[in-house]
Structure formats: C-alpha cells, structure tokens
C-alpha cells in the first residue's frame, strides 16, 4: 500500500476516539438530512398523494367558464379509451347550509363545501370512499356523506339521521332538499372530505339548477409519469373548448407553495448541520496533528516533503469522509426503511409517503465526503508548516 495512505490509516485507527468522533460527526450530518427528507419530503409527498387520490387525480380538467357543459359521459369515455388512464370521474362543487334537529335541538351550519359525485365512477378514480369510516359512500340520490367535522358541528350527526340541505341556485333562489346521512368520512391527516359533505352529482345539479353541468373531471392514471402526455393529448383533442388541464403538481401548486419553501429551509438547516460536522473534523484533525508534531518532524527529517505531509492528512480526511459517508448513508437508509416498513405517520395521523430518492442520497454522501476532505485541508496545511527541527526537540 502507498506509504502515505498506510500512515494516514494507521494514525487514524490508532486514535480510535478521534476516528469515531470524526466519523460520527459526518454520520450525524448525513443522518439529519435523511431524517429531514423522510419526514418533511414524506409529509409533502403524502399531502400530494392525498390531494391526488381524494380531489385532483393525476390530471384535473376544469373549464375557464367555471362549469364544463360538455357531456361528462362523453369526456369520461374519451379519457378511458387512453391506455394510461385508470378511470375518470366528474365532480361538481358548491357551498351549502345544512340544518338538522338532534335531540330536540336545531343545529345549523352554513358555508359547508358540498361535493357532488358520480357514485359508480368515483370509487374507481378516487380513494376518498375509503375514508368513510361509518356507513357507506354516497349510493343514491337522497343520500349524503358528512365529513367527520361537519357531523360533529351538527351536534353529533350519525348514519341514518335526516337533515336539510339548502343551496342558492344559479338564479339566486334557495333550493332545499331533505337527505339521509349514509356515511361519515374521516381521513388520516384531514386531507379528505372531513370538512365537506358529499352527495350524488345529479342531486347537486338539481339543487343548483345546472342540469348536465360538471365542475371538474378527475382523471386517475395507472402511470402517473404520463400525466403531461395525457394533459397535452387532451388539450390537443379539444382545441376549441376553453378547457384547463393540469397535472397534480400544477393543480396542487397553490396549496403546496408554502410547504415547498418550508422544505427548502429545512434542507438548509440540514446543510448547516453538515457544515458543523465539517468544523468538528477540523477540530479533531487539529488535535491529531498537534499530537503528532514530533513524528511529523521525524518524517520531514528523513525526507518527507511538505506535499507528502499534506497528502497524509488529506488522506485522513478522505478516510473519515468515506467511512462517515458510508455509515451515515447506511444509517439514513436504515431509518428510511424503518419509516417505510412501519408506515410511519406524522402526528399519528397522516401516513408519510416515504421514498428513496437515490439521486439525493448519493448527492448527500458525495457532498459530505467532499466536505470532509475540504475540512481536512486546514489541519493538513498546518501540518506542513511544522519544521523538521521539531524532531530534535529534547522535550
């Protein structure tokens, strides 16, 4: 083995405490980044996942005119002929006032978001029906599913209760209909219809006086990476309508913009953590260099050049960086694996969407390796400044 590499390795491995300290510094720096990624990117992806599954699909079609007046049947059929498309479903939304008498008390709630769904298609394109914890999803024209928060605000509405829904139609007239509660919806993390109510789309059309109108078409793909293709294909197929087609990234952008900058900040904090592990390496290596003053003098006196000394200590930085990057990445992957297998959740509710971002994992490992080398530059440089006469010093 190259004698400088051997010396670097021996010096380091004979000082176990320093080695462990330096490696741990790198390891912790990397681990922090992995943990941050699992939690915050996992949370972000979980929210995107839920928005996509419950509300926006992979591609969301709306109209510049607020309502789509083309036949929903025709549009859904058009989509479902594309092989990438799993299912498509129409939805319509508005706001409603709801009142209900429970145990002799009248409860009234206003400005409740109300969503109209096509029961048969909706369960294929969205998983929101899975959030119905009691009873079942909308199945008939006079059934209503209450979000758990709405049910609570209505004095504890239960499956089987009957209530009145009031909507202001397109002409400004109040339209009232009596519906029966068939289910209560509660989603982990509250991204589902917890604050809304769900009815049959034709019921809502009647109440709004919008026969045949649709608010949006939610399109679920079997290959989400094809979202842009499907979107462009759709826009090209209907050039003369004022349709808006958005991928999930686009349709959820507004909800996610703040979160995105939050993640950027958390990442910054992670990189600061890495920087401080670099300072730990500088300190530990300075100690190593100071402890080897005399031996460096001996090396110089038997002919080692400044460059040789520099290389020995940079090799140490490389060894620290390599082991630290390896151990840190392994620990980070271990944590990620654990989070994924246990379906770790945020605040015990929203299950994180844990993924392995190999590009970022490798980038983090390489970065901390390079940082360890950079950190070793100063101590290495200091080592080259030690004079060969040091070897002669009698004490």
């Amino acid at each position: 083995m190259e004698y400088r590499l051997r010396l670097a390795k021996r010096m380091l491995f004979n000082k176990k405490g320093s080695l462990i300290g330096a490696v741990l510094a790198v390891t912790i720096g990397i681990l922090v980044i992995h943990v941050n990624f699992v939690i915050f990117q996992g949370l972000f992806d979980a929210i995107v996942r839920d928005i996509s599954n419950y509300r926006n699909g992979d591609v969301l079609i709306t109209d510049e005119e607020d309502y789509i007046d083309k036949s929903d049947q025709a549009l859904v059929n058009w989509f479902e002929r594309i092989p990438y498309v799993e299912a498509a479903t129409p939805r319509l939304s508005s706001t409603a006032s709801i009142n209900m008498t429970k145990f002799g008390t009248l409860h009234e709630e206003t400005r409740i978001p109300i969503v109209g769904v096509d029961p048969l298609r909706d369960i294929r394109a969205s998983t929101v029906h899975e959030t119905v914890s009691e009873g079942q999803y909308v199945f008939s024209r006079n059934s209503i599913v209450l979000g758990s928060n709405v049910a609570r605000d209505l004095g504890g509405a239960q499956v089987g209760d009957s209530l009145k829904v009031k909507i202001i139609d397109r002409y400004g007239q109040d339209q009232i209909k009596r519906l029966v509660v068939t289910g209560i919806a509660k989603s982990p993390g509250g991204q589902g219809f917890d604050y809304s109510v769900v009815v049959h789309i034709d019921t809502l059309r009647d109440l709004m006086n919008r026969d045949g109108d649709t608010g949006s078409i939610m399109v679920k793909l079997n290959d989400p990476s094809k979202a842009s293709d499907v979107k462009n294909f759709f826009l090209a197929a209907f050039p003369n309508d004022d349709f808006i087609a958005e991928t999930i990234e686009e349709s959820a952008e507004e909800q996610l913009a703040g979160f995105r900058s939050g993640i950027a900040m958390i990442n910054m904090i992670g990189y600061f953590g890495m920087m401080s592990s670099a300072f730990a390496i500088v300190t530990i290596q300075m100690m190593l260099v100071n402890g080897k003053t005399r031996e460096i003098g001996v090396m110089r006196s038997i002919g080692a050049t400044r460059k040789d000394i520099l290389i020995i200590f940079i090799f140490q930085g490389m060894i620290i960086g390599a082991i630290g990057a390896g151990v840190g990445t392994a620990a980070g992957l271990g944590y990620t694996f654990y989070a994924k297998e246990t379906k770790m959740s945020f605040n015990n509710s929203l299950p994180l969407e844990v993924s392995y971002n190999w590009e970022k994992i490798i980038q983090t490992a390489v970065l901390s390796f390079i940082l360890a080398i950079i950190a070793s530059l100063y101590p290495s440089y200091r080592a080259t400044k030690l004079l060969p006469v040091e070897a002669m010093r009698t004490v």
Partner: protein
Amino acid sequence: MSKIYGTDENKVKALDNVSFSINKGEFVLIVGSSGSGKSTLLNMIGLLDRPTNGKVFIDETDTTNLTDDKISSFRNKKLGFIFQFSNLLTDLTVLENVLLPREIAGTSDSAEKNAIELLKAVGLDDQINKRANKISGGQAQRVAIARGLINNPSIVLADEPTGNLDSVTSEKIIQLMKLMAKKLNQTFIVVTHDRQHFGDVDRIITIKDGKAFEGNLPSEMGVLA
C-alpha cells in the same frame, strides 16, 4: 558559518563562525557542555535548519540555495538521522519504520530485503513485525540506526543517541554504531555527553560558547577556523 537565534535584545549567538570539513568514512564526535551549540550545529549539517551566515556543503554541493523539496530529497538520500527521543513512528512496525526512507524515495526494489539485512545487523530481526511503541528504548535506537542506513547516506547524524539509555545499553549502541561505520565505511557525526564510552574515534570536535575546537581536552584543543 554562524547561527543567531532571536532578534535584537534576546539574540543568542548559538554558533559563532564555525568552520570545518569532515572526510568520508570519518567517525566524528561532537562534545561540549550543555547549551554550547552542539545540537544547533548538527541541525545545520543535517539541513534541518539554515545558518544565519555561511554555507553547508555536502558531497561538494552548496546547500544554501536549495528549495525545500530539494532539501527534503537531500535529507532522504544523503543523510541519516538518529535522535535522542522517539525516533520512530509509533503507528508503524519496526520493519515499516526502517523501510520508510526508501518508500519516501520511491525506490522500493529489494527494499525489504535490505531492511531485513540491516535489522539483522543491529540484532533485531526477530522483532520486525512488532509495533514501534512496543519495543524498548535501546531497541528503538537500533531501529533508528538501521533506518538511518537504509538509503546508503553520505552522513549519519546522531544527537545524543544514548542520552536516554542506561549505561549497559548505551555501550551496546555505541559499539553498534562504530561497527556499522566500519563495516559500511560510513561517515558518522555524533553529538554526545558520553565521551568515554566511545573509546577511540577518528576525530573529536569540541563546541564551547558557539565556537568549535579540534580535540577534546583544553590542552590539546586547536582552534578550528
């Protein structure tokens, strides 16, 4: 040459116009009281430090204007060092310590064979794979002698090589140095407080207050200038 340490008020004239030459194969002792400038002199000859005035010639090369890298190469190939304390790199084995000057030189052909021969000559061939911090002080000085000889240097320099050893061990180390010098026709320059143990040597230089004198007794000292 001269060597002045420090500046202005706390100036120390450690060497004062010292001038002499040493021939190949000579075994030279440098003696003198503590603080007289012996180590300083050895540092200059060993190119570990530069004189304030004057020049050091080794093998007819003026070393005054050599670059740091050139000086390193000079130390590596032309000089061998034996110090008083902890000469060895404790992270390496005995054999690796002896091999190190060769590895620094980058000429490792038959290095291991030569190293083992030298270790045999200093009587340590049974310790070659021991770590250097696991051997005695006397053994360490033997390793240093072997290491000092591995690159076939022009001069071996030793600063109180026995200063740290008991008298029996000192005696052995001294005899070993004299033996190796004779066997290899090797120049040795040794700083010592231990004049008696060396017995007959080719030459003695006495340092007194930074000045050098030939011989070791005041009566027989001739001024070297």
